């Protein structure tokens, strides 16, 4: 009797121990499923349809206008500029933010005593509102602001300029702010990748006499390829979607030097109530984003198959 109490499992028939709870009803997944499908599929599908109409948000019905909205995008100088700025800005942003992120990750991966503290400092801007961040930088870029005062103090008066008021610099000022804000995020993608590389591999190469630079090039970077794919894809999509930073810094100006697809989507679709035309910008944006997403998935799949 005593033994039974101490060791109850022994006397319980095997069958009973394998009793399984019956499956949960799929019905439980319905509310979440419906919400997600409404927002991500029904609304998005409807948006694709609006892009081929002339709807203004007020009239009772939308008329099918075929490709007219897209023709207008190609013919309008501002709209073409917006598309071009988006591509230009994204390309430069992706290169700079990934270079900065990779550098920070390599520098803060191991050995440094303050690495956790430093990571936290570089990541902090990521969690801030990009609109608020943009306002801080707008002040730094003002003509009488800190940046020009600094240039004056170190004898570079000739470099002083109204950064955000100069059409040939405004777009690059936007890129600088965007890189500053999200380098810490790229850093985290690469840190996650670095942490999956066993220290022994790196150490083995070091014992064999490989220099730091060679180790980075021959060991670290190839093993970082998946992290790089994810980071590049994510930051590319970020670049396409940029909105808050542009609104906060330049609001599309000077003139239309920093208009992007999203500012046009907002200005045409909502401010000017041209829903159909605005939706056409959204469709162009969606196509760009989809191309990047699909490429990313194919690259990751192909690499997994090879390994």
């Amino acid at each position, binding site marked *: 009797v005593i033994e039974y109490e101490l060791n109850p499992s022994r006397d319980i028939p095997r069958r009973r121990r394998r009793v399984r709870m019956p499956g949960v009803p799929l019905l439980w997944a319905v509310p979440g499923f419906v919400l997600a499908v409404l927002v*991500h599929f029904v609304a998005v599908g409807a948006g694709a349809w609006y892009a081929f109409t002339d709807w203004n948000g007020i009239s009772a019905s939308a008329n099918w206008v075929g490709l007219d909205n897209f023709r207008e995008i190609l013919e309008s100088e501002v709209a073409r500029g917006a598309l071009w700025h988006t591509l230009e800005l994204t390309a430069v942003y992706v290169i700079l933010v990934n270079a900065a992120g990779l550098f920070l990750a390599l520098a803060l991966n191991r050995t440094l005593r303050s690495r956790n503290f430093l990571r936290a400092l570089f990541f902090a801007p990521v969690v801030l509102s990009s609109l608020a961040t943009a306002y801080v930088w707008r002040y730094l870029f003002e003509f009488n602001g800190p940046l020009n005062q600094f240039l004056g103090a170190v004898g570079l008066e000739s470099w002083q300029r109204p950064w955000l008021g100069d059409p040939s610099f405004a777009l690059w000022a936007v890129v600088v702010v965007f890189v500053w804000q999200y380098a810490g995020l790229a850093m985290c993608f690469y840190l996650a990748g670095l942490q999956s590389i066993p220290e022994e591999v790196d150490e083995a190469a070091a014992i064999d006499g490989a220099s730091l630079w060679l180790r980075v090039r021959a060991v670290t970077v190839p093993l970082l390829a998946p992290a790089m794919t994810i980071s590049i894809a994510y930051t590319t999509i970020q670049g396409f979607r940029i909105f808050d930073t542009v609104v906060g810094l330049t609001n599309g100006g000077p003139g239309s030097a920093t208009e992007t697809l999203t500012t046009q989507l907002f200005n045409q679709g909502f401010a000017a109530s041209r829903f159909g035309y605005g939706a056409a910008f959204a469709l162009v944006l969606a196509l760009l984003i989809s191309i990047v997403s699909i490429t990313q998935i194919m690259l990751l799949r192909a690499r997994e198959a090879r390994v």
Partner: protein
Amino acid sequence: MGLFRYTTKTYARELLMLALAAVWWIPFYFLVVVSLKSDQEVFTESASALPRDVAWDNYSSAWEGSSTMSLATAMKNSLIITGGSVLALVAIGSITAYTLARHRGRLGTALYLTFVLGLIVPFQLGLIPTYVVLRHLHLSTSYLGMILLYTGLLMPLAVFLFTGFVRTLPRDYEDAAYIDGASRMLTFTRVVFPLLRPISATVAVLSSVLIWNDFFLQLVFLSGSPQQTVVVSIYSFVGEYASNWNLIFATVILSITPILFFYVFAQRQLIRGFTGGIKT
């Protein structure tokens, strides 16, 4: 291990990185310093000089907000919308993910893949129809409308994160609770949900930051309404006070305080969320 010792070279590298971090943080220096300067000092003094008389009343003016809305009200709106959406995301997201993770058949897999596809679909395209529908239902400037919208918007992300976690949970706990006579719902709320705590924290922290900071949707839906949120308030505040940088920066600091608080106390969940939620 011996090869990665802490040498003088490492020490130099450490100092270099600390210096770089200090440069990186220069914008925060100006943010704080300017927010404490009086109206005259902002324009007369050199930008980098510390304030001579600390002007704390910038903060009380900022708290009063613009002529149309106080920052306190905007904070309350942001809190309700963010809090409501996060609660819904954790509650609905966890049970949805749990259900899908325990249905490994064809239908369950198909439903799960639909969520994964939802992660990729660019929502920008759905913005205009959503606006039209919510306006038609008179929900476009309501808390409920925004909460429903954000819940649907971030549901794929929540389900993706939760499902990955549930799949690592052994079913034994559920079976044990079932043997003890608990109903399936009770098993979920009392046994499974508490086990999900780490991932619930990640989902909650990540979605709080994303929703609190989101500007586009709040600008489109709430601008000028009594439900206007903090981000939109800063936007209209800047429009109103064009270059009163001291007031603008005091507002900015007040508006990012809740998030910074989060960042200090839930940093790990935040970073895990940001990097893990994107790995598709």
